[in-house]
């Protein structure tokens, strides 16, 4: 089943505001993500990476373009189906921790399960399982605010992981962390991909992190400027070779390449 899982986006456009304050954050982006892949969305701040990730994760709707998730057109899905999809199949690591203060680590981790309507006992069992996996079992009862940055981010990953998702979307997962703890968090994410086959979509401006991914999608000013081909390490059977067609549609000016290179 998971091998068929794919996100297929064509010509995504998204603008914020209207009139003179209108800002085109995405100007026609096509992306495909196969099951089990690790994909980095790379670009400078304000290039539209988060906007793209939000569209791919069905957190927002594009103004133009089509999006297919597991063969289903996103537009055809009901609100409830979209909620269900995000709740059951996706895990999120946002730019900030977004941990609920004054609530225990365990309660933070099991929030998606609570929303899913899982029973209290089962929820706690699953939550402890994830915390043990992340070596945070001894912190389960602590308030989230008492943790260090690295621990917090591990809790956030636990929360993204607790519903056994097919895809984890991570927006600058190491942006808030020092290099050492950032590396630990990266290792955890890639280990999840290796051992559980969870697809990773990582938004970053960190070239090193991007390089650890199977594939990199470079974005600048709302356009894809460069796709790297899938490496042999890609678990997916469906090799995303047709992406070249869309990157060709984007203006491949000299500046675009220099940006990609400059970010390295």
């Amino acid at each position, binding site marked *: 089943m998971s091998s068929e899982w794919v996100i297929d986006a064509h010509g995504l456009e998204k603008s914020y505001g209207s009139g003179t304050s209108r800002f085109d954050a995405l100007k026609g982006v096509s992306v495909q993500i196969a099951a089990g892949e690790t994909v980095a969305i790379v670009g400078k701040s304000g290039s539209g990476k988060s906007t793209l990730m939000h569209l791919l994760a069905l957190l927002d709707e594009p103004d133009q373009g089509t999006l297919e998730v597991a063969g289903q057109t996103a537009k055809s899905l009901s609100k409830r189906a979209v909620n269900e999809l995000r709740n059951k199949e996706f895990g999120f690591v946002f730019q900030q921790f977004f941990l609920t203060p004054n609530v225990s680590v365990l309660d933070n981790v099991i*929030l998606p399960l609570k929303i899913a309507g899982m029973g209290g006992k089962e929820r706690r069992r699953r939550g402890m399982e994830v915390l043990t996996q992340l070596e945070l079992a001894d912190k389960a009862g602590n308030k989230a605010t008492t943790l260090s940055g690295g621990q917090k981010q591990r809790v956030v990953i636990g929360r993204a992981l607790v519903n056994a998702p097919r895809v984890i979307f991570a927006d600058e997962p190491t942006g808030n962390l020092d290099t050492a703890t950032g590396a630990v968090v990266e290792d955890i994410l890639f280990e999840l991909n290796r051992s559980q086959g969870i697809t990773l979509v990582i938004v970053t401006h960190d070239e090193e992190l991007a390089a650890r991914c199977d594939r990199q999608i470079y974005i600048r000013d709302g356009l894809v400027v460069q796709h790297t081909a899938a490496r042999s390490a890609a678990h997916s059977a469906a090799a995303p070779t047709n992406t070249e067609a869309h990157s060709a549609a984007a203006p491949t000016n000299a500046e675009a390449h220099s940006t990609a290179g400059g970010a390295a």
Partner: protein
Amino acid sequence: MRTKDLIISAISNTFRSKLRTTLTVLAIFVGAFTLTLTNAVGAGVSQYVDAQVGALGSPDVFIITQASDASTAGDGPVKYDAASSASVASQQGPPGTTTKALTDADLASIANVAGIESVDPIRAVQADYIESESGTPYEFSINATSAVTTADLTAGAQLDGSASAAQLVLPDTFVTPLGFASAADAVGTSVSIGITDILGAKHVVAATIVGVSLESLLASGAGANDALIAELADAQSGGIDTAVTSYGVAVAHFDTALSADGITALKADLASEGYTASTIADQLGAVQTVITGIVGVLNAFAVIALIAAAFGIINTLLMSVQERTREIGLMKAMGMSGGKVYTLFSLEAIVIGFLGSALGAGVAIGLGSALSAVLSRGLLSGLPGLNILLFEPASVALVIGLVMLIAFLSGTLPAQRAAKQNPIESLRYE
């Protein structure tokens, strides 16, 4: 999210900002406290009046007087007619008006009205004293309408209207002075009633105590059955059969099976004959209306306090929504529907409402019961049977329910705001 989890989350969220919740709850507390107390006062007084007046009156009785048309200003003096107006103005009407008294001819024509089963004049008798075997006489008065009313008994039985023996229902304040050990002890004993006739001669009439009653607001004095009233009236008249017998008030019995409409029609019939008829319920109604009015005004103040508290709830929850923007965004990103978010915040409003109202009602009941006990022994001891604050479970529940409803309505605006939040906007929120 399960309903149980929603409720638990709502409760724990409520206590996250303790000071803010406490202040909001306090505002609701004041409203709920006041509303519970005013309702209790209303219920307490109503119950007292019901007991005092309701139990007194038989449901099938009219109190009949002459319609006071003759005294209406503007018509000028009415010509005297020995047959019809042969009576003095009595003191039965309200102050400032005069009412013609009823004559035997009036009684006959009232009796002729279809639907009236019997008419009895109320004869006022002025007793001087009552004396038991112990020997000390005490000043004493007899309630003229006692024959048609039901006394609030502490011992013995009601008066028997058809009995030929003279019967008396003694107010319980007379029990000890007359030398009886207890109310029950007084029942069955014989007492003497002194009365002065119109010529100044003293007479003594014997009567048997059949019951002892609580002093009542609306019917003071002892109760006497028809036989005793007749004996006293005869004694009072001094053996002289006065040419004109006139009565201020007559009591008419009508068919108990008569519907409310039938009673209204009968009243109209009597009115067309020139008589004013009112049932005990009518008279009770007037008292009740006043009390309901006062309680209504007090309740209005309490509701105003609650409306002020409602703005407190709105404010608290709006702040809470603002503060928890990211949390709401996160929950929505994780697949929580807008409906569930709405429910969560509505429940928080209801929890605040419940806390305030339950505390308010609880403290009102506690303080009120204590106050009521103190008052009935002190300030209000002259009104036995009055429970000034009566907390009825149904009305307390109603107050709590009402406050929770107000809280829910106050919560709709903030809850809507939370439900409508775009998860992306919320997560970007810095």
